[in-house]
């Protein structure tokens, strides 16, 4: 499973990307436009997925003949003034999808807008000049005043991915700890185990052992995923890169000296999207992110797995764990949800700060914050709090664990567990 998972994940994403690029865009919606509108003279323009054909039949005639005709939908434009468009209908034998509906709406809005502009005296070519495509380049200014490439997109993706992975890992391995404790209870080996070792040693041994398994898997995943994606990138993107540069190069005026051509080509290659992403990734200091990830994974995992060990010791079988899972998972889930929304939207705000300090949510929140840059003192404080946090939960859990593992048949409840907490050794 360790080796298979990166392949499955890579395949998954590959499929998703493939379909989002290619898949849905092959269907063409053929729309017959019945226009009774004398004021709207602008015509709808067909595009890749929508073809508009202005027909002369009346609406009633079209409706009757729709199923036999080639058309998917009828767009009915009644008479209306341009200031208050109303009564426009999109009719069809089948329900148009949201994207088709939106596209038609946008197109109609577009031609109404264009017509209004024209009637106010603006020429077509001026209209064209209104449109310009804007692409903002992100640059981060470091303390020395130097510029570094940064990319809001890349940062969000990395931060979110780290947050998601953190959540997944802590949950996955925490539950493994719980299952291990329950297995020892149900197989009854627990009694001879603790006649040989102390309960605390047993609990910590299990937690640390599973942590090492988790780390090994994680490192393997990183290595494999990096290897696979580097190969994939080299195979697919370098071709496109070459294409782009060549297209760009041919756009350069013929007759220019060879040197200029080369410089132009190099400039274009440097600004190609892939190089761009690579540069902004570099600016994020990937090594730091991975090191911090490992620290927070260990810390967050220790924090939560101690709680899971305590739950496992309190029950006799896995079904009984449900009632305890909720309160333990809530802060983790909350941290996950809030991190991906609030922290991503405002990584420098108060909520983001507190979420990345409280040990319950800090592993996830801090990982989402990190690519945006976190002052060293905040990072240090958060780490210290997390260490204190897991020392606390481990201590608390061991007091419940040492009693719970020998208790059978009791219906566990929070009150019960608190009682065990206070049992003398």
């Amino acid at each position: 499973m360790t080796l298979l998972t990166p392949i499955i994940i890579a395949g998954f994403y590959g499929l998703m990307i493939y379909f989002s690029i290619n898949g849905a865009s092959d269907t063409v919606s053929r729309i017959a436009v019945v226009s009774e509108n004398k004021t709207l003279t602008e015509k709808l323009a067909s595009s890749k997925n929508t073809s508009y054909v202005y027909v002369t039949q009346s609406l009633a005639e079209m409706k009757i003949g729709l199923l036999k005709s080639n058309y998917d939908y009828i767009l009915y434009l009644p008479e209306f003034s341009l200031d208050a468009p109303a009564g426009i209908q999109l009719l069809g034998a089948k329900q148009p999808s949201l994207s088709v509906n939106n596209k038609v709406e946008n197109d109609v809005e577009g031609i109404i807008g264009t017509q209004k502009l024209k009637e106010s005296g603006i020429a077509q070519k001026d209209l064209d000049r209104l449109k310009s495509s804007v692409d903002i380049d992100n640059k981060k200014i470091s303390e020395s005043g130097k510029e570094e490439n940064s990319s809001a997109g890349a940062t969000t993706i990395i931060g979110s991915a780290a947050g998601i992975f953190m959540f997944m890992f802590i949950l996955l391995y925490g539950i493994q700890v719980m299952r291990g404790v329950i297995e020892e209870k149900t197989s009854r080996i627990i009694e001879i185990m603790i006649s040989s070792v102390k309960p605390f040693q047993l609990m910590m041994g299990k937690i640390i052992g599973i942590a090492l398994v988790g780390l090994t898997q994680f490192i393997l995943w990183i290595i494999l995923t990096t290897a696979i994606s580097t190969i994939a990138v080299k195979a697919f993107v370098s071709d496109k890169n070459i294409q782009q540069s060549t297209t760009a190069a041919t756009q350069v005026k013929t007759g220019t000296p060879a040197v200029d051509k080369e410089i132009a080509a190099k400039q274009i290659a440097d600004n190609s999207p892939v190089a761009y992403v690579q540069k902004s990734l570099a600016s994020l200091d990937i090594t730091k992110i991975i090191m911090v990830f490992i620290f927070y994974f260990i810390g967050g995992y220790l924090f939560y797995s101690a709680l899971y060990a305590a739950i496992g010791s309190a029950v006799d079988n896995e079904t009984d764990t449900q009632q305890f899972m909720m309160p333990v998972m809530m802060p983790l889930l909350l941290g996950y949800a809030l991190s991906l929304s609030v922290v991503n939207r405002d990584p420098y705000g108060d909520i983001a700060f507190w979420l990345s300090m409280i040990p319950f949510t800090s592993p996830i929140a801090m990982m989402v914050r990190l690519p945006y840059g976190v002052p060293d003192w905040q990072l240090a404080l958060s780490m210290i709090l997390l260490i204190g946090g897991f020392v606390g939960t481990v201590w608390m859990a061991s007091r419940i664990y040492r009693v719970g593992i020998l208790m059978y048949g009791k219906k566990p409840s929070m009150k019960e567990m608190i009682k065990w907490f206070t049992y003398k050794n």
Partner: protein
Amino acid sequence: MLSVNNIVKQYATHRALDDVSLKVEQGKIFGLLGPNGAGKTSLIRIITQITAPDSGEVIFNGQRLNADHISQIGYLPEERGLYKKMEIGEQVLYLAKLKGLSTAEATKRVKYWFEKLEMGSWWNKKVEDLSKGMQQKVQFVATVLHQPELIILDEPFSGFDPVNADVIKNEILELNKQGATFIFSTHRMESVEELCDSIALIHRSKKILDGTVTGIKEKYRNNTYWVEYDGNYDTATPSEIFDVLQKEVQPGKTKLKIKLREEKTANQLLSVLLPVVNIHRLDEVIPTMNDIFIDQVKTQN
């Protein structure tokens, strides 16, 4: 070698052990008896240091019980279990190493025991692939592997068929001959008769009886005999020597349960009967541990 002094163990809702004291002598087999819920398992858990008493102490070989003694005690709990998906050879090795053996030493001994109990071919089998009886044999090996001085067995024979139970019994006797002391908790009174030197009976958290098996039975002797004969003897006439408690008449023989009077002997009984009937047998009624157990518990109630 083991001294339990005034142990008290209180759980939140009830007291499991109330001022329990007993002594186990070196090299003996000691039976810890009692009804369900009496407190035996609690006491055993205190001796194996799984829990600690609220007051009182346990002295092991002259020292207060501490972590160093873990390697000198072996424990077979009543509720048995092993890691299901682990191979048994590996698992027994692991448990032995937890008790302080080196890998080399442990491997040697595991091989020895597996051969001895005819488990040699099971080394690589997973626990869940074995039957219950086989699992219990594995667990027995794990208990005695590190040659502990004190071996505590809680219901060791439950789950064994008669053949395997016999095998285990012989192992216990052999280990005992080699010097191991046993504490043995069980409900099977026949095994107590066969194996134990001394016993203690725990009921409702208190010790109500202890002593050597022979000593206790001696106390219960009350000069009652069964005598079987054929012929006619008139039991209606009272005798100076004995009283007839029970009479069973069967084709060809009669059985009498008689109790000797003060200072009268069995010989005198025989001299009364011999001239008149053909004696088949004469047995003293010595109560079994089973009877003593039931009697003691009932009295307490």
